[in-house]
């Protein structure tokens, strides 16, 4: 694979410590600990790196190993981490401090948050055993050292040195993006980079992914190009986890989605909410499912307000089991029905299209050449979330769509900013609060500005509006 063909996260992955962005202190601490092995086995034989995804935990270990001349044996979530498997994987190597070529060795257990209680039975205990016996450095990595709802890392916590990684600050992400853009030789508007950095929440890796999504194959990128950004499904495996959840017959099976979806439970919550009406197509089921989701919201609010995170388990039960077990009268995903209805609404006879379920969702395939009708059909099915697959000559409607309110917020941020400034002006001039201005006055102003240019001009002058605000009111 040439460098150009690589995903940008790989291409711009730091290879040396100097290229690393953020978490300087954590990396220094890590280096001190690794170096301490040169004088024999230290008191703490393992180090536990924890922090949110995409801030450079793994990369810093690999870069440091490179610098200090270590070979890294890596065990991550693609490996089964049962006791038996770990023993055969690691085995006696923890007693062999050097490779046959004379390089030092270390073990890296990555993505520990993905160690599951059932499939990886005994895994955590086995890792603890390895740490107690090891003669080479052991590095543990997880997103959090103390999971809120099940304290599975406890045996590891007590016998390791903890180093915390923080989200990468906005300014550093922005700087890194600028360097990358420069290296690529493309021109990207400053505000695009700022938006990306802003959306990153300190996750540099996902930001580079997003940059690639909007900029790949372009020489110039403007705010226009960011419109589809949030529609991209950043985590491909979430839909699979959701499918399992929605078809679960027990609370326990449904609950599993919380750890298997690999997204924060807030995001998961939004995914479930987004797709719930598609799965629960019977009104009675929908009421029950929606009530469960609303109850979940309450439990979370209480957990947050009282700082009692043990209450979160009630939230999880409602949002997973409460929703999945509400499915009693629903026919299924209801997507085929929805698609048929949409096509019929456009006035096509059923024989014009083949609509069937596929492993990825629902396929909508025209049986004849659509010519000028294509655009109309496209518009109709796109409103459900279907996308045209050119190679297949059909539309694909995915089973689960990503939460829409998120991209809707992002798409409308400029408009909302404009409304806020306008509301402040109206509030002052009309002696009302700005939320009253938004609720009562601005909607009527919009009617006036759309209908009567003369009256609109008069009001614009009276309120002292700028061109941009006038334009916003007219659309």
């Amino acid at each position: 694979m040439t460098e150009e063909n690589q995903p940008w996260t790989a291409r711009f992955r730091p290879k040396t410590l100097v290229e690393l962005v953020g978490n300087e202190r954590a990396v220094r601490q890590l280096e001190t600990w690794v170096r301490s092995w040169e004088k024999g086995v230290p008191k703490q034989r393992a180090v536990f790196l924890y922090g949110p995804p995409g801030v450079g935990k793994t990369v810093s270990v690999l870069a440091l190993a490179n610098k200090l001349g270590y070979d890294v044996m890596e065990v991550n979530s693609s490996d089964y981490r049962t006791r038996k498997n770990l023993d055969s994987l690691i085995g006696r190597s923890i007693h062999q401090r050097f490779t046959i070529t004379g390089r030092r060795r270390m073990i890296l257990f990555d993505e520990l948050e993905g160690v599951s209680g059932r499939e990886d039975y005994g895994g955590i205990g086995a890792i603890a055993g390895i740490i107690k016996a090891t003669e080479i450095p052991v590095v543990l990595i997880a997103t959090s050292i103390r999971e809120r709802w099940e304290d599975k890392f406890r045996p590891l916590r007590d016998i390791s040195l903890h180093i915390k990684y923080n989200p990468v600050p906005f300014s550093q992400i922005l700087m890194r993006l600028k360097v990358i853009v420069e290296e690529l030789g493309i021109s990207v508007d400053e505000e695009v980079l700022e938006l990306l950095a802003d959306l990153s929440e300190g996750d540099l890796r996902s930001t580079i992914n997003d940059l690639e999504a909007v900029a790949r194959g372009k020489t110039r990128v403007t705010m226009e190009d960011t419109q589809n950004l949030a529609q991209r499904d950043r985590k491909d495996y979430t839909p699979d986890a959701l499918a399992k959840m929605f078809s679960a017959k027990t609370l326990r099976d449904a609950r599993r989605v919380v750890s298997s979806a690999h997204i924060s439970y807030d995001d998961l919550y939004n995914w479930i909410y987004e797709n719930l009406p598609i799965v629960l197509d019977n009104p009675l089921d929908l009421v029950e499912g929606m009530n469960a989701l609303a109850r979940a919201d309450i439990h979370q609010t209480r957990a947050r307000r009282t700082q009692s995170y043990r209450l979160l388990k009630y939230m999880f039960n409602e949002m997973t089991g409460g929703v999945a077990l509400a499915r009693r009268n629903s026919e299924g995903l209801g997507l085929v029905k929805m698609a048929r209805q949409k096509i019929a609404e456009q006035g096509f006879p059923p024989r014009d299209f083949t609509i069937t379920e596929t492993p990825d969702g629902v396929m909508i395939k025209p049986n004849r050449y659509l010519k000028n009708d294509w655009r109309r059909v496209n518009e109709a099915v796109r409103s459900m979330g279907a996308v045209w697959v050119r190679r297949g000559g059909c539309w694909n409607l995915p089973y689960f769509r990503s939460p829409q309110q998120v991209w809707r917020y992002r798409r409308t941020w400029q408009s909302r900013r404009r409304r806020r400034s306008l509301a402040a002006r109206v509030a002052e001039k009309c002696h009302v609060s700005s939320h009253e201005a938004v609720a009562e006055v601005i909607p009527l102003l919009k009617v006036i500005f759309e209908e009567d240019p003369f009256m609109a001009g008069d009001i614009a002058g009276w309120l002292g509006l700028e061109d941009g605000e006038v334009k916003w009111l007219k659309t």
Partner: protein
Amino acid sequence: MSGGMWAEKYRPQTLDDMVNQSEIISRLKNFVKDRNLPHLLFVGPAGVGKTTSILALARDLYGPAYRSYILELNASDERGINVIREKVKNFARTASIASQVSFKILVMDEADSLTNAAQHALRRTMEIYTRTCRFCLIGKYSEIIIDPIQSRCSIFRFAPLSERDMKGWIRSIAKKEGVSLIEEGLVAIYEAAQGDLRKATNLLQAAAATQKDEVDDIVIYSVLGRVSPGKVRELLNMGLKGEFMEARKILRTLLIDEGLAADDIIRMIYSEIMRLSIPERWKVKLSDTLGEIDYRLTQGARPEIQLSALVANLALAGEEMDR
């Protein structure tokens, strides 16, 4: 004729211009005559002249330059007790330079949305700066204002406008602006505004913008259909029909695209529910559900989720009505 929003253009400028609330106005006029004021607490529904009265009083008291002697704050915008403390104190502690009046006036609109803590802070401020500043607190409900503040204020209760006053006022604006408003249109405005004169005036203006000939009830309803309460009605209808996906789309338009606050939507849903033609028993039931949701929102719950749950439940009401 020009002059911006009609609700402002025709806002009475002096106490003499006020057409309603005659008893309150005559008491306020006495304050102007004495060139002295107690602290004031104005309570009553929206759009009946509370803000107008205090602005008119200030103009009568200080003359055309009254703006420099009065500070208007809106408690629902000035969030946080510190902002209120600072702005209020800075304004209140400096003496008036008007020759004949020794105090300035601070108007706190929507005072009933102040937290308890903020009200207690305000109470002390009112006491300390009484010499240089009078407070006029405005709100819908006096019950929510703490007793110590109530006992320091003269309370004025503003009555809802009578149908005659309101129609007369709207008719006179229509005449001055050359709008041919027929009786059916006037009735529709009156019913939509529910005694809120500002709302009625704004509605008349928007209707006049869409229709150059005759403004009748159909014009008014078409304008109402294009603003938030019309969309709220559509939302409820979709919910009753069990069209959850469509309803959720409208809900998102209101919350995200139009930026309405959740409690405004709740307020609109409430008044729409009361007007729906559904079994009375369901009105009580839905009001109870709405009350539960309203409370949940004060506790920090997600507005879209809670309102979606309400919409889903509407389908049950709709189904029972079909049977």
